Protein backbone atom coordinates (compact mmCIF):
# COMPACT_ATOMS: atom_id res chain seq x y z
CA UNK A 1 0.00 0.00 0.00
CA UNK A 2 2.86 2.37 0.71
CA UNK A 3 3.61 2.49 -3.03
CA UNK A 4 0.19 3.92 -3.86
CA UNK A 5 0.18 7.45 -5.22
CA UNK A 6 -1.82 9.47 -2.73
CA UNK A 7 -0.96 12.96 -3.86
CA UNK A 8 0.53 14.68 -6.92
CA UNK A 9 1.69 18.25 -7.42
CA UNK A 10 0.53 19.90 -10.65
CA UNK A 11 1.78 23.49 -10.70
CA UNK A 12 -0.40 25.97 -12.59
CA UNK A 13 0.87 29.23 -14.04
CA UNK A 14 -1.23 31.65 -16.08
CA UNK A 15 -0.29 35.25 -16.81
CA UNK A 16 -3.04 37.86 -16.87
CA UNK A 17 -3.03 41.43 -18.06
CA UNK A 18 -5.18 43.43 -15.69
CA UNK A 19 -6.85 46.56 -16.97
CA UNK A 20 -8.23 49.03 -14.47
CA UNK A 21 -10.57 50.50 -17.06
CA UNK A 22 -10.83 54.14 -18.16
CA UNK A 23 -12.87 55.28 -15.16
CA UNK A 24 -10.69 53.82 -12.43
CA UNK A 25 -7.58 54.97 -14.31
CA UNK A 26 -8.27 58.65 -13.65
CA UNK A 27 -8.51 57.82 -9.94
CA UNK A 28 -5.21 55.92 -10.00
CA UNK A 29 -3.47 58.69 -11.94
CA UNK A 30 -4.78 61.17 -9.34
CA UNK A 31 -3.11 59.15 -6.60
CA UNK A 32 0.19 59.52 -8.51
CA UNK A 33 -0.23 63.29 -7.95
CA UNK A 34 -1.32 63.03 -4.32
CA UNK A 35 -4.97 63.80 -5.15
CA UNK A 36 -8.20 61.97 -4.36
CA UNK A 37 -10.10 61.82 -7.67
CA UNK A 38 -13.50 60.15 -7.55
CA UNK A 39 -16.39 60.05 -9.99
CA UNK A 40 -20.00 61.16 -10.00
CA UNK A 41 -22.89 58.93 -11.06
CA UNK A 42 -24.79 60.74 -13.82
CA UNK A 43 -28.08 59.20 -12.64
CA UNK A 44 -28.16 59.54 -8.82
CA UNK A 45 -25.33 62.13 -8.65
CA UNK A 46 -23.57 60.34 -5.79
CA UNK A 47 -19.78 60.78 -5.75
CA UNK A 48 -17.79 57.56 -5.52
CA UNK A 49 -14.25 57.84 -4.11
CA UNK A 50 -12.69 55.45 -4.95
CA UNK A 51 -14.81 54.90 -8.08
CA UNK A 52 -15.26 51.12 -7.47
CA UNK A 53 -15.10 49.44 -10.90
CA UNK A 54 -16.29 52.49 -12.83
CA UNK A 55 -19.97 51.85 -12.13
CA UNK A 56 -22.75 52.92 -9.78
CA UNK A 57 -24.10 49.64 -8.41
CA UNK A 58 -27.35 51.25 -7.31
CA UNK A 59 -28.21 52.60 -10.76
CA UNK A 60 -26.35 50.10 -12.96
CA UNK A 61 -24.80 53.13 -14.66
CA UNK A 62 -21.32 54.01 -15.89
CA UNK A 63 -19.81 56.69 -13.69
CA UNK A 64 -19.40 60.12 -15.30
CA UNK A 65 -17.30 63.19 -14.53
CA UNK A 66 -14.19 63.26 -12.32
CA UNK A 67 -14.68 64.89 -8.93
CA UNK A 68 -11.66 65.75 -6.79
CA UNK A 69 -12.64 65.44 -3.14
CA UNK A 70 -11.12 66.87 0.03
CA UNK A 71 -8.10 65.45 1.86
CA UNK A 72 -10.09 65.59 5.07
CA UNK A 73 -12.85 63.29 6.16
CA UNK A 74 -14.91 61.77 8.92
CA UNK A 75 -14.77 58.28 10.44
CA UNK A 76 -18.25 56.81 9.93
CA UNK A 77 -17.62 53.30 11.29
CA UNK A 78 -14.53 51.43 12.48
CA UNK A 79 -13.27 48.23 14.00
CA UNK A 80 -10.41 47.58 16.41
CA UNK A 81 -8.24 44.68 15.26
CA UNK A 82 -7.02 42.68 18.28
CA UNK A 83 -6.35 39.36 16.54
CA UNK A 84 -2.86 38.44 15.33
CA UNK A 85 -2.72 36.71 11.92
CA UNK A 86 -0.06 35.44 9.52
CA UNK A 87 1.52 38.27 7.54
CA UNK A 88 0.31 41.00 9.87
CA UNK A 89 2.54 44.05 9.47
CA UNK A 90 0.90 46.49 11.90
CA UNK A 91 1.16 46.30 15.68
CA UNK A 92 -2.14 45.30 17.32
CA UNK A 93 -4.47 46.69 18.50
CA UNK A 94 -5.02 48.92 15.48
CA UNK A 95 -8.05 50.52 13.86
CA UNK A 96 -9.46 49.92 10.38
CA UNK A 97 -12.07 52.55 9.58
CA UNK A 98 -14.51 53.66 6.94
CA UNK A 99 -13.69 57.25 6.12
CA UNK A 100 -16.10 59.60 4.36
CA UNK A 101 -13.96 62.23 2.63
CA UNK A 102 -15.57 65.68 2.45
CA UNK A 103 -17.28 65.88 -0.94
CA UNK A 104 -17.67 62.08 -1.36
CA UNK A 105 -20.83 60.06 -0.79
CA UNK A 106 -19.24 56.64 -0.25
CA UNK A 107 -16.83 55.81 2.55
CA UNK A 108 -13.43 54.25 1.88
CA UNK A 109 -11.51 51.80 4.02
CA UNK A 110 -8.19 52.83 5.55
CA UNK A 111 -5.97 52.50 8.56
CA UNK A 112 -6.10 54.92 11.51
CA UNK A 113 -2.81 55.57 13.32
CA UNK A 114 -1.16 58.18 15.58
CA UNK A 115 -4.00 57.77 18.09
CA UNK A 116 -4.76 55.24 20.79
CA UNK A 117 -7.24 52.67 19.45
CA UNK A 118 -9.45 53.27 22.47
CA UNK A 119 -9.84 56.95 21.52
CA UNK A 120 -11.09 56.36 17.97
CA UNK A 121 -14.81 57.15 17.56
CA UNK A 122 -17.53 57.70 14.97
CA UNK A 123 -17.46 61.30 13.79
CA UNK A 124 -13.73 61.76 14.40
CA UNK A 125 -12.12 64.03 11.80
CA UNK A 126 -9.07 62.60 10.04
CA UNK A 127 -6.51 63.40 7.32
CA UNK A 128 -4.12 61.27 5.25
CA UNK A 129 -0.41 60.79 5.91
CA UNK A 130 1.22 60.31 2.49
CA UNK A 131 4.34 58.27 1.90
CA UNK A 132 7.39 60.14 0.53
CA UNK A 133 6.59 61.25 -3.04
CA UNK A 134 9.36 59.12 -4.59
CA UNK A 135 7.54 55.97 -3.35
CA UNK A 136 4.20 56.86 -4.98
CA UNK A 137 2.52 54.32 -7.24
CA UNK A 138 -0.98 54.21 -8.75
CA UNK A 139 -2.34 52.89 -5.45
CA UNK A 140 -4.20 53.99 -2.32
CA UNK A 141 -1.17 52.58 -0.48
CA UNK A 142 0.45 55.94 -1.24
CA UNK A 143 -1.40 56.90 1.92
CA UNK A 144 0.28 55.15 4.86
CA UNK A 145 -2.64 55.84 7.15
CA UNK A 146 -5.07 58.52 8.32
CA UNK A 147 -4.66 60.40 11.60
CA UNK A 148 -6.88 62.73 13.67
CA UNK A 149 -6.88 66.38 12.63
CA UNK A 150 -7.87 67.63 16.07
CA UNK A 151 -11.00 69.35 14.68
CA UNK A 152 -14.25 69.00 16.65
CA UNK A 153 -16.12 65.77 15.80
CA UNK A 154 -18.59 65.91 12.90
CA UNK A 155 -22.21 65.79 14.08
CA UNK A 156 -23.90 62.39 13.48
CA UNK A 157 -26.49 63.91 11.13
CA UNK A 158 -23.69 65.02 8.77
CA UNK A 159 -22.77 61.41 7.90
CA UNK A 160 -25.88 59.45 8.98
CA UNK A 161 -26.94 59.05 5.33
CA UNK A 162 -23.59 57.53 4.36
CA UNK A 163 -23.32 54.61 6.78
Amino acid sequence: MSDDVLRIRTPIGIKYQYSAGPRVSSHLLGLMEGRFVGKRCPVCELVYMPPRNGTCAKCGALLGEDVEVSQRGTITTFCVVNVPFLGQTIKIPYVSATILLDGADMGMQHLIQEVDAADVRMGMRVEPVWRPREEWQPSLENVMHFRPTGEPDAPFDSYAGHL
Partner: protein
Amino acid sequence: MREVAIIASAQADNTSTTTSTPVEMLIPVIQQVLANASMTKTDIGFWCHGSCDYMTGQPFSFVSAVDALGAWPPIIESHVEADGAFALYEAWLKIQTGEIDTALVFGNGRSSSGDINRILTLQLDPYVVGPLWPDDRSIAAMQARACLESGVVTERAMAEVAQRNHRNALTNPKALRSGDHSIEALMAAQLVADPLRELDCPAHADGVTAVIIAAGDRARSLVARPAWIRGIDHRIESQNLGNRSMTTLPSAALAAHKAGVGNDKIDVAELHAPYSHQELLLTTALGLSESTTINPSGGALCANPMMSAGLARFAEAATRVMNGTADRAIGHASSGPWMQQNLVCVLEGE
Protein backbone atom coordinates in the same frame (compact mmCIF):
# COMPACT_ATOMS: atom_id res chain seq x y z
CA MET B 1 -44.74 23.04 -19.87
CA ARG B 2 -45.08 26.81 -19.95
CA GLU B 3 -44.51 28.44 -23.33
CA VAL B 4 -41.36 30.58 -23.25
CA ALA B 5 -39.89 32.76 -26.00
CA ILE B 6 -36.81 34.83 -26.70
CA ILE B 7 -38.13 38.36 -27.23
CA ALA B 8 -34.99 40.52 -27.47
CA SER B 9 -31.22 40.36 -27.70
CA ALA B 10 -28.21 42.65 -27.82
CA GLN B 11 -24.52 42.07 -28.45
CA ALA B 12 -21.39 44.15 -27.96
CA ASP B 13 -18.98 44.50 -30.86
CA ASN B 14 -16.52 41.63 -30.63
CA THR B 15 -13.02 42.98 -30.08
CA SER B 16 -9.56 41.46 -29.83
CA THR B 17 -8.64 43.65 -26.85
CA THR B 18 -10.44 46.13 -24.65
CA THR B 19 -9.34 48.51 -21.93
CA SER B 20 -12.73 48.54 -20.19
CA THR B 21 -13.43 46.35 -17.18
CA PRO B 22 -15.85 43.45 -17.66
CA VAL B 23 -18.51 45.36 -15.71
CA GLU B 24 -18.07 48.49 -17.83
CA MET B 25 -18.51 46.33 -20.94
CA LEU B 26 -21.78 44.90 -19.63
CA ILE B 27 -23.71 48.10 -18.94
CA PRO B 28 -24.36 49.32 -22.51
CA VAL B 29 -25.49 45.83 -23.61
CA ILE B 30 -27.82 45.39 -20.63
CA GLN B 31 -29.34 48.81 -21.36
CA GLN B 32 -29.65 47.99 -25.07
CA VAL B 33 -31.46 44.68 -24.58
CA LEU B 34 -33.95 46.33 -22.21
CA ALA B 35 -34.53 49.10 -24.76
CA ASN B 36 -34.98 46.53 -27.56
CA ALA B 37 -37.81 44.91 -25.57
CA SER B 38 -39.25 48.28 -24.43
CA MET B 39 -38.73 47.10 -20.86
CA THR B 40 -37.13 48.58 -17.75
CA LYS B 41 -35.22 46.70 -15.09
CA THR B 42 -38.25 46.50 -12.80
CA ASP B 43 -40.03 44.44 -15.51
CA ILE B 44 -37.42 41.67 -15.15
CA GLY B 45 -38.31 38.83 -12.77
CA PHE B 46 -34.97 37.02 -12.80
CA TRP B 47 -31.41 37.80 -13.90
CA CYS B 48 -29.01 35.02 -14.84
CA HIS B 49 -25.34 35.44 -15.78
CA GLY B 50 -22.72 33.23 -17.40
CA SER B 51 -18.99 33.95 -17.03
CA CYS B 52 -15.75 32.31 -15.91
CA ASP B 53 -13.38 33.37 -13.13
CA TYR B 54 -10.45 31.66 -14.85
CA MET B 55 -10.74 34.24 -17.63
CA THR B 56 -10.43 37.23 -15.30
CA GLY B 57 -7.97 35.50 -12.97
CA GLN B 58 -9.99 36.73 -10.01
CA PRO B 59 -12.03 34.48 -7.71
CA PHE B 60 -15.67 35.55 -7.40
CA SER B 61 -15.20 38.13 -10.16
CA PHE B 62 -18.74 37.37 -11.29
CA VAL B 63 -20.12 39.06 -8.15
CA SER B 64 -19.09 42.47 -9.49
CA ALA B 65 -21.24 41.88 -12.59
CA VAL B 66 -24.27 42.59 -10.41
CA ASP B 67 -23.01 46.20 -10.31
CA ALA B 68 -24.04 46.44 -13.96
CA LEU B 69 -27.66 45.63 -13.17
CA GLY B 70 -28.63 48.41 -10.75
CA ALA B 71 -29.72 45.93 -8.10
CA TRP B 72 -31.74 48.42 -6.06
CA PRO B 73 -34.46 47.66 -5.06
CA PRO B 74 -33.06 44.12 -4.64
CA ILE B 75 -33.32 41.69 -7.57
CA ILE B 76 -33.40 37.89 -7.89
CA GLU B 77 -30.27 36.75 -9.69
CA SER B 78 -28.08 33.73 -10.30
CA HIS B 79 -24.82 32.83 -12.01
CA VAL B 80 -23.43 29.86 -13.92
CA GLU B 81 -19.71 29.27 -14.40
CA ALA B 82 -20.38 28.67 -18.09
CA ASP B 83 -21.50 30.29 -21.32
CA GLY B 84 -24.54 32.55 -21.02
CA ALA B 85 -26.56 30.01 -23.04
CA PHE B 86 -26.49 27.72 -20.01
CA ALA B 87 -27.73 30.66 -17.93
CA LEU B 88 -30.63 30.90 -20.40
CA TYR B 89 -31.39 27.23 -19.72
CA GLU B 90 -31.49 27.95 -15.96
CA ALA B 91 -33.79 30.94 -16.56
CA TRP B 92 -36.07 28.82 -18.77
CA LEU B 93 -36.32 26.28 -15.91
CA LYS B 94 -37.05 29.10 -13.45
CA ILE B 95 -39.94 30.24 -15.64
CA GLN B 96 -41.21 26.63 -15.70
CA THR B 97 -41.53 26.74 -11.90
CA GLY B 98 -44.12 29.50 -12.31
CA GLU B 99 -42.22 31.83 -9.96
CA ILE B 100 -41.43 34.37 -12.66
CA ASP B 101 -42.58 35.37 -16.16
CA THR B 102 -39.53 37.25 -17.49
CA ALA B 103 -35.77 36.85 -17.30
CA LEU B 104 -32.75 38.75 -18.55
CA VAL B 105 -29.85 36.44 -19.37
CA PHE B 106 -26.34 37.57 -20.18
CA GLY B 107 -22.89 36.16 -20.78
CA ASN B 108 -19.59 37.98 -20.93
CA GLY B 109 -15.88 37.44 -21.03
CA ARG B 110 -12.59 39.09 -21.88
CA SER B 111 -10.64 36.48 -23.79
CA SER B 112 -7.76 38.95 -24.05
CA SER B 113 -7.01 39.07 -20.30
CA GLY B 114 -4.78 36.02 -20.57
CA ASP B 115 -3.63 33.34 -23.02
CA ILE B 116 -7.05 31.82 -23.70
CA ASN B 117 -5.65 28.67 -25.34
CA ARG B 118 -3.76 27.98 -22.11
CA ILE B 119 -6.58 29.01 -19.78
CA LEU B 120 -8.82 26.45 -21.51
CA THR B 121 -6.31 23.74 -20.52
CA LEU B 122 -7.58 24.13 -16.97
CA GLN B 123 -10.91 22.54 -17.90
CA LEU B 124 -9.14 19.22 -18.57
CA ASP B 125 -8.86 16.36 -16.10
CA PRO B 126 -6.34 17.77 -13.59
CA TYR B 127 -4.47 14.52 -12.86
CA VAL B 128 -3.57 12.80 -16.10
CA VAL B 129 -4.14 15.20 -19.02
CA GLY B 130 -4.02 18.73 -17.55
CA PRO B 131 -0.44 18.46 -16.19
CA LEU B 132 0.79 17.79 -19.76
CA TRP B 133 -0.49 21.31 -20.64
CA PRO B 134 -1.96 20.59 -24.06
CA ASP B 135 -3.50 23.87 -25.20
CA ASP B 136 -6.98 24.16 -26.68
CA ARG B 137 -5.77 24.15 -30.29
CA SER B 138 -3.64 21.04 -29.77
CA ILE B 139 -6.57 19.14 -28.25
CA ALA B 140 -8.81 20.18 -31.17
CA ALA B 141 -6.07 19.28 -33.67
CA MET B 142 -5.92 15.72 -32.31
CA GLN B 143 -9.64 15.40 -32.96
CA ALA B 144 -9.35 16.91 -36.44
CA ARG B 145 -6.53 14.50 -37.27
CA ALA B 146 -8.62 11.51 -36.12
CA CYS B 147 -11.54 12.75 -38.24
CA LEU B 148 -9.33 13.11 -41.33
CA GLU B 149 -7.73 9.69 -40.85
CA SER B 150 -11.12 8.00 -40.46
CA GLY B 151 -12.53 9.86 -43.46
CA VAL B 152 -15.48 11.55 -41.68
CA VAL B 153 -14.12 14.94 -42.82
CA THR B 154 -11.73 16.13 -45.51
CA GLU B 155 -9.35 19.09 -45.54
CA ARG B 156 -11.38 20.55 -48.42
CA ALA B 157 -14.63 20.26 -46.45
CA MET B 158 -12.96 22.03 -43.53
CA ALA B 159 -11.81 24.81 -45.87
CA GLU B 160 -15.35 25.12 -47.23
CA VAL B 161 -16.66 25.61 -43.68
CA ALA B 162 -14.05 28.33 -43.09
CA GLN B 163 -14.86 29.95 -46.43
CA ARG B 164 -18.62 30.05 -45.85
CA ASN B 165 -18.39 31.38 -42.29
CA HIS B 166 -15.94 34.13 -43.23
CA ARG B 167 -18.12 35.14 -46.18
CA ASN B 168 -21.23 35.20 -43.98
CA ALA B 169 -19.42 37.38 -41.46
CA LEU B 170 -18.97 40.08 -44.13
CA THR B 171 -22.56 41.14 -43.36
CA ASN B 172 -22.20 40.82 -39.57
CA PRO B 173 -20.88 44.13 -38.21
CA LYS B 174 -20.27 42.55 -34.78
CA ALA B 175 -17.88 39.88 -36.13
CA LEU B 176 -14.21 40.05 -35.24
CA ARG B 177 -13.03 38.88 -38.65
CA SER B 178 -14.49 38.18 -42.08
CA GLY B 179 -13.31 37.83 -45.67
CA ASP B 180 -13.79 36.28 -49.08
CA HIS B 181 -11.13 33.57 -49.28
CA SER B 182 -10.64 31.02 -52.05
CA ILE B 183 -10.54 27.33 -51.12
CA GLU B 184 -7.06 27.13 -52.62
CA ALA B 185 -5.78 29.98 -50.46
CA LEU B 186 -7.37 28.50 -47.33
CA MET B 187 -5.84 25.08 -48.00
CA ALA B 188 -2.43 26.60 -48.72
CA ALA B 189 -2.37 28.65 -45.51
CA GLN B 190 0.19 27.85 -42.84
CA LEU B 191 -0.66 25.18 -40.28
CA VAL B 192 -0.98 26.46 -36.70
CA ALA B 193 -1.69 23.07 -35.08
CA ASP B 194 -1.51 20.32 -37.69
CA PRO B 195 -4.00 19.81 -39.43
CA LEU B 196 -5.59 23.13 -38.32
CA ARG B 197 -4.94 26.47 -40.01
CA GLU B 198 -5.63 29.86 -38.45
CA LEU B 199 -9.06 30.23 -40.09
CA ASP B 200 -10.08 26.73 -38.92
CA CYS B 201 -9.73 28.00 -35.32
CA PRO B 202 -12.08 30.15 -33.25
CA ALA B 203 -11.64 33.93 -33.39
CA HIS B 204 -11.39 34.43 -29.63
CA ALA B 205 -12.89 37.77 -28.70
CA ASP B 206 -13.91 40.02 -25.84
CA GLY B 207 -17.67 40.23 -25.93
CA VAL B 208 -21.05 40.45 -24.26
CA THR B 209 -24.45 39.07 -25.25
CA ALA B 210 -27.76 39.64 -23.45
CA VAL B 211 -31.14 38.05 -24.16
CA ILE B 212 -34.59 38.52 -22.63
CA ILE B 213 -37.01 35.60 -22.40
CA ALA B 214 -40.66 35.78 -21.39
CA ALA B 215 -43.57 33.39 -20.84
CA GLY B 216 -46.73 33.02 -22.94
CA ASP B 217 -48.94 36.06 -23.32
CA ARG B 218 -46.34 38.25 -21.65
CA ALA B 219 -44.06 37.53 -24.61
CA ARG B 220 -46.88 38.15 -27.11
CA SER B 221 -47.69 41.49 -25.49
CA LEU B 222 -44.08 42.68 -25.75
CA VAL B 223 -43.12 41.81 -29.34
CA ALA B 224 -44.94 41.02 -32.59
CA ARG B 225 -43.24 37.70 -33.31
CA PRO B 226 -41.53 36.03 -30.35
CA ALA B 227 -39.05 33.20 -31.01
CA TRP B 228 -40.72 30.34 -29.11
CA ILE B 229 -38.50 27.80 -27.39
CA ARG B 230 -40.17 24.55 -28.58
CA GLY B 231 -37.44 22.29 -27.25
CA ILE B 232 -34.25 22.69 -25.25
CA ASP B 233 -31.88 19.97 -24.07
CA HIS B 234 -28.41 19.77 -22.53
CA ARG B 235 -26.22 16.64 -22.67
CA ILE B 236 -22.68 16.05 -21.38
CA GLU B 237 -20.03 13.49 -22.27
CA SER B 238 -17.23 12.04 -20.15
CA GLN B 239 -14.48 14.38 -19.01
CA ASN B 240 -12.02 11.54 -19.66
CA LEU B 241 -10.82 12.03 -23.25
CA GLY B 242 -9.93 8.33 -23.44
CA ASN B 243 -13.61 7.45 -23.04
CA ARG B 244 -14.71 9.75 -25.84
CA SER B 245 -15.40 9.22 -29.51
CA MET B 246 -13.10 11.50 -31.51
CA THR B 247 -15.17 11.35 -34.69
CA THR B 248 -18.79 11.62 -33.53
CA LEU B 249 -20.72 13.80 -31.08
CA PRO B 250 -23.20 11.50 -29.29
CA SER B 251 -24.21 14.16 -26.74
CA ALA B 252 -25.11 16.62 -29.50
CA ALA B 253 -27.14 13.94 -31.32
CA LEU B 254 -29.03 13.06 -28.14
CA ALA B 255 -29.70 16.70 -27.23
CA ALA B 256 -30.97 17.34 -30.78
CA HIS B 257 -33.28 14.33 -30.56
CA LYS B 258 -34.68 15.36 -27.17
CA ALA B 259 -35.13 18.98 -28.34
CA GLY B 260 -37.13 17.75 -31.35
CA VAL B 261 -34.78 18.99 -34.07
CA GLY B 262 -35.90 16.26 -36.49
CA ASN B 263 -39.65 16.91 -36.13
CA ASP B 264 -39.73 19.42 -38.98
CA LYS B 265 -37.37 21.20 -41.33
CA ILE B 266 -34.85 23.66 -39.93
CA ASP B 267 -34.39 26.94 -41.82
CA VAL B 268 -31.41 28.32 -39.91
CA ALA B 269 -28.92 26.74 -37.50
CA GLU B 270 -26.56 28.88 -35.47
CA LEU B 271 -23.96 26.40 -34.24
CA HIS B 272 -21.32 27.02 -31.62
CA ALA B 273 -18.62 24.91 -33.26
CA PRO B 274 -15.30 26.51 -32.31
CA TYR B 275 -13.27 24.64 -34.99
CA SER B 276 -14.11 24.04 -38.66
CA HIS B 277 -14.08 20.23 -38.44
CA GLN B 278 -16.39 20.45 -35.41
CA GLU B 279 -19.06 22.20 -37.48
CA LEU B 280 -19.00 19.19 -39.84
CA LEU B 281 -19.33 16.73 -36.94
CA LEU B 282 -22.13 18.79 -35.45
CA THR B 283 -24.06 19.09 -38.71
CA THR B 284 -24.02 15.29 -38.91
CA ALA B 285 -24.96 14.83 -35.24
CA LEU B 286 -27.93 17.19 -35.57
CA GLY B 287 -29.05 15.51 -38.79
CA LEU B 288 -29.15 18.80 -40.72
CA SER B 289 -29.71 18.75 -44.47
CA GLU B 290 -28.61 21.00 -47.34
CA SER B 291 -31.79 23.07 -46.94
CA THR B 292 -30.60 24.47 -43.59
CA THR B 293 -28.61 27.71 -43.65
CA ILE B 294 -25.75 27.24 -41.21
CA ASN B 295 -24.22 30.15 -39.31
CA PRO B 296 -25.44 33.17 -41.30
CA SER B 297 -23.63 35.23 -38.61
CA GLY B 298 -20.25 33.69 -39.39
CA GLY B 299 -20.27 31.65 -36.18
CA ALA B 300 -17.44 31.09 -33.75
CA LEU B 301 -14.80 31.01 -36.52
CA CYS B 302 -15.41 34.74 -36.98
CA ALA B 303 -16.11 35.73 -33.37
CA ASN B 304 -15.81 33.47 -30.36
CA PRO B 305 -16.38 35.69 -27.32
CA MET B 306 -15.76 33.13 -24.59
CA MET B 307 -18.76 32.74 -22.24
CA SER B 308 -21.13 34.54 -24.59
CA ALA B 309 -20.49 32.87 -27.97
CA GLY B 310 -23.15 30.22 -27.28
CA LEU B 311 -25.71 32.76 -26.13
CA ALA B 312 -24.85 34.83 -29.23
CA ARG B 313 -25.85 31.81 -31.36
CA PHE B 314 -29.22 31.77 -29.56
CA ALA B 315 -29.55 35.52 -30.18
CA GLU B 316 -28.68 35.19 -33.89
CA ALA B 317 -31.15 32.32 -34.39
CA ALA B 318 -33.91 34.13 -32.46
CA THR B 319 -33.36 37.35 -34.43
CA ARG B 320 -34.04 35.48 -37.68
CA VAL B 321 -37.24 33.95 -36.33
CA MET B 322 -38.40 37.29 -34.92
CA ASN B 323 -37.79 39.16 -38.19
CA GLY B 324 -39.48 36.41 -40.22
CA THR B 325 -36.48 35.23 -42.25
CA ALA B 326 -36.83 31.84 -40.52
CA ASP B 327 -39.81 29.91 -39.19
CA ARG B 328 -37.80 27.24 -37.41
CA ALA B 329 -34.23 27.68 -36.19
CA ILE B 330 -31.63 26.09 -33.93
CA GLY B 331 -29.58 27.88 -31.32
CA HIS B 332 -26.70 25.73 -30.13
CA ALA B 333 -24.04 26.16 -27.45
CA SER B 334 -21.11 23.95 -26.57
CA SER B 335 -18.36 23.83 -24.02
CA GLY B 336 -15.41 21.71 -23.04
CA PRO B 337 -12.79 19.80 -25.04
CA TRP B 338 -14.11 18.19 -28.25
CA MET B 339 -17.48 19.82 -27.58
CA GLN B 340 -17.97 17.81 -24.39
CA GLN B 341 -21.22 19.63 -23.58
CA ASN B 342 -23.99 20.43 -26.02
CA LEU B 343 -27.10 22.54 -25.47
CA VAL B 344 -29.60 22.49 -28.33
CA CYS B 345 -32.59 24.80 -28.56
CA VAL B 346 -35.32 24.74 -31.22
CA LEU B 347 -36.93 28.15 -31.86
CA GLU B 348 -40.14 28.70 -33.85
CA GLY B 349 -42.27 31.61 -34.98
CA GLU B 350 -46.06 31.43 -34.78
